[in-house]
Every structure is written in C-alpha cells, then in structure tokens.
C-alpha cells in the first residue's frame, strides 16, 4: 500500500493504516466522540462521515486481509486533520482499475448537486439499493450531505489491474 502523503498528515489528530474491521471503526469512532474537544454538533457530523468513509474502505477495498475468525476485510488508511476552520477526513484504498470510471462519475455527479438535489438522489438510490449490498454510491451521497462540502477525490494508477482511490471531505467548525 502507498505511504500516506504528507499533505494528509499535517495537523493530524488520528491516522490509521491497515485492515479496517468494524471493531476498529467502532473503537476509534468512540475516540472521536470522546477525546476530540469540540462542539457536539460538529463531532456528530465528523463521526457520521468517518463511519461511512471507513466502512466504504472496509467493504470495497480491492486489497483484502484475513483477520480474526477468518473474516476478510478491506485494507486501506484514513486520517483526520484539524485546521482553523474545519476537520478533514481522508481515506485511501486500492480499487480495481475498472471501477475507477464509475467512482469518478459518482463523485462528479454528487459535487454538482445542491442539498435538495442530493437528498432526492439519496432517496432514489436507497429505494433501488439491494438489501445485501447497498453499494458505495449511497455512502458517498450521505457523506456529501453530512459534510456540506465537496468530495475531493483522485484516482492514481497502481498497476495493470489496480488504481488507488483517495477521497477527502471537510466538516466545517461553524
């Protein structure tokens, strides 16, 4: 897995790289709620976005690792940074090169919509989603709705079959 770039590590409150299990997500999620000192409303949003983005890595990273009890989970990284006006969450994980186009379409579409249009898209996407796997799309829509900010993303080549997907968004402090 690529080393986490310096730009995602400045003023970092929390960083993790490796297999992302639900227990890890839960443990560090409670850390966010309990140990970062800020207004509850802002931390609630930070927690929600953290769960959606890290679970997208856990479910959809093309790099898998077997952990306890034979469970396979996705491998990737995430960071939470603090600046004067916002908290920024970034995740990174390997994807199949063939999924890059679809993810680019999702993120570009989401970034062009206002709040009402996003809510409408969320309702339509949820109604069509399969019960066993709702897919990454609705998690990205929810992330954008909760953050109220753009999804900054990039897809870098890894090898013939794989790319690396990095996605980042902000939670404003006000």
């Amino acid at each position, binding site marked *: 897995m690529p080393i986490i770039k310096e730009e995602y590590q400045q003023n970092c409150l929390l960083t993790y790289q490796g297999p992302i299990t*639900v*227990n890890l*997500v*839960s443990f560090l999620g*409670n850390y966010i709620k309990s140990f970062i000192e800020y207004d*509850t*409303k802002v931390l*609630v*949003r930070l*927690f*929600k976005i953290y*769960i*959606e983005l890290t*679970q997208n890595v*856990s479910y959809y990273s093309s790099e898998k690792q077997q952990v306890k009890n034979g469970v396979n989970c996705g491998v990737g990284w995430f960071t939470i940074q603090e600046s004067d006006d916002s908290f920024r969450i970034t995740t990174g994980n390997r994807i199949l090169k063939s999924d890059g186009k679809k993810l680019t379409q999702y993120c570009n579409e989401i970034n062009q919509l206002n709040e009402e249009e996003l*809510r409408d898209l*969320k*309702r339509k996407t*949820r*109604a069509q*989603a399969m*019960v*066993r796997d*709702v897919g990454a799309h*609705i*998690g990205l829509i*929810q992330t954008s*709705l*909760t953050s109220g900010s753009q999804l900054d993303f990039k897809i870098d080549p890894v090898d013939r079959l794989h790319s690396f997907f990095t996605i980042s968004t902000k939670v404003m402090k006000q």
Partner: protein
Amino acid sequence: MESLIINEVKGSPYYPAVSFNAETGVCEMRGESYMEETYKFYEPLIGWINTYILQKKPLEMHFKLTYFNTNSSRLILDILDIFNKYHESGGSVNVYWYYDKKDPDMVEEIEDFMAESGMEIKMIPF
C-alpha cells in the same frame, strides 16, 4: 409467538438493543446501527414484524437510534414500508422517533424516511 429481545453488548456498540414485545406489540430499537452484513441482523426483526402483524394486533414502534449508517437505513426503510402497508390495510401502527436535539441532521433523516415510506413518524426531541 415469542417476544424478540437482543440486549446491547458493551464491546459491540454497532448493534442496537432490540425489544419487540409479542404480548403488548410495543417494540423498541435503541443505540447505534452500523454492523457488518447488516441484513443478517435485520432479517429476523423484519420476519418477527411480518409474523406479528398477521395477528392484526396493534403495534407501536419506538426508534431510539442515535446513529445508523446507510446500509442500516436501507433496512429501516423496509421496516417502515411494512408498517405503512399494514396501516393502509387497516392495521393499527404508531411510529415514534426519539432524536437528540444536538444532532444537526436527524430531523431531515426522519423526514426522508417519511417521504420514502409514506409512514407517519412522530418525532420526539430529547
């Protein structure tokens, strides 16, 4: 028919506590919901509700979920769809959602559930 009880487990806060009472029809879900393989947790709950409403008895649902991820929201919507169909066929069902006033987005979430399912939800802030 037996009641369905799932107690909260301290080490697994991503599973909500569940209490569905087969005698009174009073049901409650409490806590957070962002487990893996969400459908495996929700399918027995949906099965219980489908069996209960066959008796044509009144049902009262109290959602005390402080957080649910998008996977869980898909299945909560299925539950609300079942409630709405029961209501439309003459069944008595009341749905209450308790939400933290410090959560800036929960009211919109509940409004979206109402718009999508057609089921009325009474919102109770705490």
